[in-house]
C-alpha cells in the first residue's frame, strides 16, 4: 500500500481502462480494529488487526466481472486486473451491465453525517481494558447462580473510497465502539440459560459503559424455569432488540434481484396496498449521527430519505442500474441505509410508546425477545421461526417460555400489526422499535 492509500485505487482504475475496459469502478476499504475480551476476572482474548482490500468491477465489451484482492503491490494489481479482463472476455455479453447514469451520482455538499469520532486514535489500551473488566464486574459475585460472564470492548475504524471511470469519486469514514456482555447461569437440571446485552455507538463518549453487564445478568436470570405453552393464536409483542428480523423478509422481497428473478412475494405489488394502512417504513438515509447514514450507495447513486412502504402501500423497490435496465424500471437505490418504521396514527401522536405501554395495550400474549433460527420463503412470504421470550398477562410478564415456534406469512403478519413503538435502539443500523401483532400462530405443546 502506498503512502496515500487512494493511489492504489486510482492506479487500478487507470490500469483497467488502459488494458481495454469500457468502464470500471474501484473501491478501497481499510479497516483497523481491536478488541479486549474478559472472562470472569481475567483477560481472555486480545485481538488487533488492520486490513485493506481493493474491489475492482470491470465492464469489458458489454461483459462484467467483479474482483477483489488485498495484495495491493502495484505490479500484482496490474497482473490481477489483466487476468480479470481476460476472464471477463470469456463471458456472454450482457448489455444491461453499465455504470449508472451520471446524473444520479452524489455530487457532494451534504452536511457532516457525523459518522467518525477522531478520538478513536487516542483511547489508551488500559482504558479499553478497564471498560471490559468493569462490565464483567457488574456480574461477578452478584448472584450465586452465575456460571460465567464474558465481556468485550471493541472498536473499529473503517475507511471507504470509491472512484469510477465516469468521474465519480468520494470517500467515507466511520468509527464504531461496542461493549457486550454474555452471562450464563445455572438453571434447572442441566440447563445453563445464557443471555447477552450490547451497546454500540459511532462516538466513544456516547457508549453506555455502565449497565451492560447488569442487563445481561438480569436477562439470564429472567430465563430461569421456562415453560412451554399450548399451541394456538396469541398476541405477539417483539422486543426492539429482535424486531428487525420481521422487516428483513420485506427488504429482501423489495430487492431488484428478487423481483427480476421472479423470486419475490412482493413482485407486481408496486403501488398496491399490501400491508396494514397503519404501517409505514421509512429510509432515513441522511439521519445525522445514525449508524448506516450515507450520501451514496455502492454505485455512487445519491441516497435520499424516502418512504418505502407508506400506509401499507409499496412505494419503491430497491433497483440498481443493472436491474433497472433488466426490468425497465427507474434506478432507486441499491438498498436501505437507516430504516425506521412507525404508525400513521394521529390519535397516539406524542405518546411514548415503549414496551410497558405496548404490553399493557396488548393485555395477554407472548413477548418475543429473540429468534432462534427459522427462515422464510422468498417466493411466498411464508415463515417459521424459533422464539425466545415470555408469556405476559394483563400487561405484565408472567414467565419465560421454551421450545416454541411462530409460523405464518409475512403479508398476513403485517396486516395484523396492532402497535409500532417509538423506542428503537440506537445500537443498530435498522432503527426498528417494539412491535405488536394480533392473532399470530405459535407452536408449542
Amino acid at each position: 500500500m502506498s503512502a496515500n492509500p487512494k493511489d492504489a485505487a486510482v492506479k487500478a482504475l487507470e490500469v483497467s481502462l488502459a488494458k481495454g475496459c469500457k468502464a470500471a469502478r474501484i473501491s478501497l476499504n481499510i479497516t483497523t480494529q481491536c478488541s479486549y475480551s474478559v472472562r470472569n476476572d481475567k483477560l481472555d482474548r486480545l485481538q488487533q488487526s488492520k486490513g485493506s482490500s481493493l474491489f475492482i468491477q470491470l465492464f469489458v465489451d458489454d461483459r462484467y466481472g467483479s474482483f477483489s484482492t488485498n495484495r495491493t503491490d502495484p505490479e500484482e494489481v496490474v497482473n490481477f486486473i489483466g487476468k480479470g479482463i481476460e476472464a471477463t472476455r470469456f463471458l456472454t455479453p450482457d448489455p444491461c451491465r453499465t455504470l449508472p447514469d451520471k446524473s444520479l451520482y452524489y455530487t457532494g455538499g451534504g452536511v457532516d453525517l457525523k459518522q467518525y469520532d477522531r478520538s478513536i486514535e487516542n483511547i489508551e489500551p488500559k482504558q479499553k481494558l478497564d471498560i471490559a473488566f468493569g462490565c464483567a464486574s457488574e456480574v461477578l459475585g452478584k448472584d450465586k447462580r452465575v456460571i460465567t460472564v464474558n465481556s468485550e470492548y471493541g472498536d473499529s475504524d473503517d475507511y471507504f473510497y470509491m472512484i469510477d471511470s465516469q468521474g465519480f469519486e468520494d470517500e467515507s469514514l466511520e468509527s464504531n465502539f461496542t461493549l457486550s456482555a454474555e452471562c450464563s447461569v445455572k438453571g434447572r437440571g442441566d440447563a445453563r440459560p445464557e443471555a447477552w446485552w450490547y451497546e454500540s455507538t459511532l462516538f466513544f463518549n456516547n457508549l453506555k459503559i455502565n449497565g451492560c453487564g447488569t442487563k445481561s445478568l438480569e436477562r439470564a436470570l429472567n430465563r430461569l424455569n421456562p415453560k412451554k405453552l399450548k399451541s394456538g393464536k396469541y398476541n405477539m409483542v417483539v422486543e426492539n432488540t429482535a424486531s428487525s428480523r420481521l422487516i428483513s423478509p420485506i427488504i429482501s422481497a423489495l430487492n431488484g434481484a428478487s423481483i427480476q428473478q421472479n423470486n419475490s412475494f412482493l413482485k407486481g405489488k408496486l403501488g398496491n396496498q399490501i400491508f396494514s394502512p397503519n404501517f409505514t417504513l421509512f429510509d432515513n438515509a441522511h439521519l445525522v449521527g445514525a449508524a448506516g447514514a450515507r450520501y451514496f450507495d455502492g454505485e455512487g447513486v445519491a441516497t435520499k430519505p424516502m418512504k418505502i412502504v407508506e400506509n401499507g402501500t409499496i412505494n419503491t423497490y430497491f433497483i440498481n442500474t443493472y436491474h433497472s435496465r433488466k426490468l425497465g424500471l427507474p434506478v432507486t437505490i441499491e438498498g436501505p441505509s437507516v430504516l425506521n418504521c412507525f404508525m400513521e396514527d394521529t390519535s397516539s401522536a406524542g405518546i411514548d410508546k415503549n414496551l410497558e405501554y405496548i404490553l399493557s395495550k396488548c393485555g395477554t400474549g407472548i413477548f418475543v425477545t429473540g429468534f432462534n433460527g427459522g427462515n422464510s420463503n422468498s417466493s411466498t412470504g411464508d415463515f417459521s421461526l424459533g422464539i425466545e421470550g415470555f408469556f405476559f398477562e394483563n400487561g405484565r410478564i408472567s414467565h419465560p417460555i421454551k421450545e416454541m415456534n411462530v409460523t405464518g406469512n409475512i403479508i398476513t403478519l403485517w396486516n395484523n400489526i396492532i402497535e409500532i413503538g417509538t423506542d428503537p435502539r440506537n445500537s443498530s443500523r435498522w432503527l426498528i422499535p417494539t412491535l405488536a401483532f394480533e392473532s399470530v400462530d405459535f407452536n408449542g405443546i
Partner: protein
Amino acid sequence: MIESHKLMAFFGVCEEDLRRLVEIALSNGGDYADLYFEYSISNELALRDGEVNAAGSHIDYGMGVRVLFGDQTGYAYTEITTIEEMEKAAKVASRIASSPSKYKLPNVNKLKFANFYPVICPWEENPISNKTPYLQELNAKIFDLDKRVNKVLARISDSTSQILFFNSEGLLACDDRPMASLTATCIMENNGKVENGSSSRSFRTGFEFLTHELVDEVANEVVHRTASLFDAIQPSGGELPVVMGAGSSGILLHEAIGHAFEADFNRLNTSIFADKFGKKICTEEISVIDDGTIPWNRGSVNFDDEGVVGQKTYMVKNGVLTSYLHDRISANYYKTKPTGNGRRESFRFMPLPRMRATYMENGKSRESDIISSVKRGIYVDNFSNGQVQIGAGDFTFYVKSGFLIENGKLTQPIKDINIIGNGPQALADIVAVADNSIIDNGTWSCGKEQYCPVSCGMPSVLVKKLTIGGVQN
C-alpha cells in the same frame, strides 16, 4: 502437495524468520505460539437468465500470530508479510502474557500426514471457458425437466488455499486446500403460484469435480425439490413424532449435540452437556462421529489450523459421551490430546473447536419400518439452516420440505416449517435408527463466530417428539 521451502519463499520468509517471530511472540512469557500463513484464491462463475454472464476472482493473503498463556489468547494478523509488519503482529499478540520469557525453540519437525484431498486437475489450470459448458448444460437440463421452470440461477465456485503453519513446538506444516461447489436455484411458476428450490454439491477437489453425472444429479434434485412445493402446505403445528430422512438430517446432530460437544463451551461449563462426559446420554444403538478424514469431503482437514493431523473422533460411542471436540486450549485443560478440531475461517481469525463432517453410524432398522410405525407425525429430508442455544440446549432447524405421516404412510407434502427441540432430550428421544446412513454433500457452512465448511450425515431416525412449526386451522 506444495513443498515447504517453496511456500516459505512465496510468503517471503525463511526458517530463521519463523523462529524469530515465535521468539518475539513468546517474549512476554507466553506458553505457546503459532504462525498461520494463508494465500487463498477463489473464483465464481454464474449463470442467470440463460447466460453465463458474471464472473469473479478474489485473493486473500496474510498471516496471523497467536499466543497462548494458560487459556488466554493474544491474536494479531497482518496482510503484509514483511518482517517488520510480522514482528509488529507478534509483539501485539505477545501482550496477552506478562511473565519472563522461558522459551527455547526445539528442532524444526515437518508434520507428517495423509492427504485426504489429492487434486488431479488444479483449478488454476482451467479457465472460465472450461467451466461454462457445465453451467449451460445444467441450465438446459433443469428447463427440460419441467415446463413450469421459469428462472434458473446456477453457480460454480472454486477456491484453493495454500497454508504454511509453524509453532513454538518446532512443528512446520504446509497444505493445499481445494474447495469446489456447484449450486442451482430454480424458480417455478404454476397457475400464478411461484416456488423456489435449491440444490448443491461441494467437495475438496479440483476441476475433476465437474462431471455430466454431477450436473444430472443437481438438476434432478433441484427440479424435484421445487416441483414438490406446489402441493405442499404448512401443517398444523405442535408436538409430533418426526422421522428424519437419511443424509441432510445430520443437521440435527450438528445443532442438537455437535455444538454442545465443542470443548470450549464445556471447558467454560456453559454447555448443557458439560457434566455428561463418560455418561450414557442416549440409546446404545447410537454412535456419533466427527470426522476430518473422509476423502474429498467438504469438512476434511489434512491437519487442522493449529497443526494437529486430521482424525476421526467418536463423540458418542454406543450411547456414551466419549469425547468432546478439542482445540489445543481445551485439550490442555482436559489433559487430553487435541482432536484436530481447531479450525478458523482464515488468517484473520484465531482457531476455535469446530466440527468437520458429523454423522451417525448405521442402526438396525429399515426406514420403511420406521415410517410405518408412526401413526401421526412428519417426515423431513430437506433443510436450509439451523441454530442452537448452547446453555439452554434449545436447537432449531428449518425444513424446506417433507411429508405428513398418517397411519404409517407418507401423505400430504409439507414445507416451510421450523422445528425446535432440546438437544439432550431429542437425543434421548431417538427411538429407532435405520441402516441407511449417508453423508450429505451439500454446501454446508457453520457460522460459530466465523465461517467454516462442514458436512453432516445420518441414517433415518425416529425422534419421539419435537415441536413443529405450523398454522392453526
